[in-house]
């Protein structure tokens, strides 16, 4: 149990709780804010593991942009600020909970079978990972990189076109 591990455990707990809160919050805005927490915890975990570039990217994009997006979406669709009257039906919740539980149990069992808690296989911080990412990205994976940029462009245009007001143009 190293210090990182303890830190990680704390972050993991907070993150888990936040994640559960996201999906169970009655107030959708609260859910969005809990999402911030969860995502931030994931980012901190990245940092703890040693993937600083990914971690900061995570925080930048997810917490910074995507959650804002969500909040915008909530506002624009007139999500009730107060309690969410769009409450889920009990049967949905139970089915969903059962499924989710089964998935968690299944995954956890699977993973722990292969990598039992006691193993010393750990995630070492990768030294100079940003440099390594840069090198790998622009050497080996430059094509996917370009494609993803293209994808983003398409998404951008698509989003604009879709969300445009109906003035002569089909949505």
């Amino acid at each position, binding site marked *: 149990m190293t210090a990182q591990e303890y830190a990680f455990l704390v972050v993991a707990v907070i993150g888990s709780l936040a994640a559960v809160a996201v999906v169970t919050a009655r107030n959708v805005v609260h859910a969005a804010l809990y999402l911030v927490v969860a995502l931030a915890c994931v980012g901190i975990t990245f940092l703890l593991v040693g993937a600083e570039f990914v971690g900061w990217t995570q925080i930048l994009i997810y917490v910074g942009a995507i959650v804002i997006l969500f909040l915008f979406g909530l506002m624009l669709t007139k999500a009730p600020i107060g309690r969410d009257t769009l409450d889920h039906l009990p049967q*949905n919740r139970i*089915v*969903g909970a059962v*499924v989710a539980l*089964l*998935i968690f149990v*299944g995954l956890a069992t*699977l993973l722990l079978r292969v990598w039992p808690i006691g193993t010393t296989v750990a995630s070492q911080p990768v030294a100079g990972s940003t440099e390594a990412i840069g090198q790998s990205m622009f050497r080996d994976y430059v094509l996917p990189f370009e494609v993803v940029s293209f994808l983003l462009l398409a998404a951008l245009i698509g989003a604009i076109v879709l969300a445009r007001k109906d003035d002569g143009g089909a949505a």
Partner: protein
Amino acid sequence: MVGVLGFLAQEGGEAAAEVVKAAPNWFVEHAYLIPLLAFASGALTLFFGKRTPGKGPVYGILAIGVGLVLSLGVVWSFVQGGGNFEHNIEWFRIGTLQVQLGFYVDGLTAVMLVVVTSISLMVHIYSLGYMHGDKRYTWFYVVLSIFTGAMLVVVVASNLFQLLVGWEIMGVCSYLLIGHWYEDHANSSAAIKAFLTTRVGDVPFMFGIFALVYATGMTTSNIQVISETVAGGHISTLLVTCAALLMFGGTIGKSAQFPLYTWLPDAMAGPTPVSALIHAATMVAAGIYLVARTFEVFVQADPIALTVVSIIGAITLLMAALLALVQDDIKKVLAYSTISQLAYMVAALGMGEAGYPAAMFHLFTHAFFKALLFLGAGSVIHAAHSNNMSDMGGLRKHMKLTYATFVIGSLALAGVPPFAGFFSKDEIILVAKDQQIYWLGAVLLVGAVITAFYTTRMVLKTFHGEYRGTEHLHESPWSMTAPLVFLAAATCVVGFLGFAPTGAPFMDWVYFGGVPETPVFSPLVAGISVLAVAIGLLFGWRLYKDYKAVDPVTELGGAYTLLEHKYYLDDIYFGGIVRPIRDTWSAGIYWFNQHVLDAVVNGAAGGSKGLSGGIMWIDRNVIDGIVNGAGTAMETFGKGLRTIQTGKVQWYAVGLFGGVITLALFIFR
């Protein structure tokens, strides 16, 4: 030089003599051509007749003319002393029975060929004038040719089935010709009566053939083979007698003997040339010819067979002669006369071997003078436009040629020497005396008296006295009088062919039993016959020479009534046979057909309908039910299945994740 010429002449003469010697055999060996020619002309006339000059008779006259020449050639062969000839080809086999096609030529055949072809030729020529302008002129000649062909087939047939074929074709042609003017219902009725009545005789005839074929062990119907088999003596007498009597049934029908003679007088409804050919000379003679051909059977049978034959002949002879007395229609007189004369031939045959040549000789002569009489009657009818003698009278002044030939024929019929009929009738009476069958001889003589009487009556009523009609009288055209002259000449001559003092060559050709008979002339018998004839003639002359209006015969009272109604025989037949069958039986059978047979058929149909209805129900409800049910089941299943598609994405996600979990469980556990 002269020597060379002489040598050549000798050689040529010898060669010619060879040809001449061999020639008659050629005629005999190719005798089958004669019927073939007749049929060919029939076919040609049928298809091309209308295009020939004269619209029909050309082929017939040519074919029969050539046939006559060929027939004379055949006779020539027998004159030269040639022998019999037979040639058969196998037509088909049924089991052991072999049916052949062939021809058999002996003296009898030769004589018959000449008779048929010559009289047919005369009738063909006669019809040029008589049937001139007729609606169905061409068709008349077609059937005439086919008929001649059929009779020739009968004459040359070597086996009984072939004979039967010719027999039946003749029956059909007779039917067609009697009903030639079928627009008048009476004519078509007469045709049917003729056909059906002869049919009644044809059935036993057929059974007679079957019996004889059976006697040969079901192998053949060849006449010579049958004769040999029967003569061999191994066939049971009962079978042979039955066969003989059955075949005689055919004769009774076709040759108009008692009790099946009623069709012949009614058959006079046909055109006179037809009457002359068919009902005087040829078809009715076929029955006699049949007995003659199969005479071995009759001879080998129990004597009762021949006795029956003579009795029937005798009865018919008297009955018909008496009926001829009371007829006013000239053709009917001749018809009954024919029946009576045929009975003479039948009676002669009934006397056995001895009577055979006499019967055939009478057939030969009778053909000529009867045809002559009929054609003469046709000439008279043509002029007076009436068949009845009460409408005639005094015709000798206007139709001299017809009168002369008719008289010759009548004298022959009555049996006055030196005309043909005397010799042949005399022969028969002579045989009766020789065989000591005196009752039959007496009947024959009585018949001769009556014959002479009605013949005189006929001639006097028609030609003598004053004309009682209103037509303009004139002699017939040459096409009608030429045959009369020819036949009259023949009548004068042919008698001597059977006259003993002149050699009687006829008996050399026609005989039974392997050896020709040498006839003997008996002046006693001849004298008695002449006496009988003279009595009849005188009687007739006395009663009819001053005929005015009332026929003396009608004064016979009750006898006349009986004769007028033809012994009520026709009425018996009609009331006893025709009407019950036509009305009662037909109605009964019709009822049976409608209610029983049709009920069965309809019932079967109804049953089928019901069954098919049931099957249809099964098909609709069960089978289609299964098919439709499968479809409906699928539909219901689909309807149920589609409710999964709720449209709600989260449902689908549940399914997705559930599936993943399940898969994971299966794979990793």
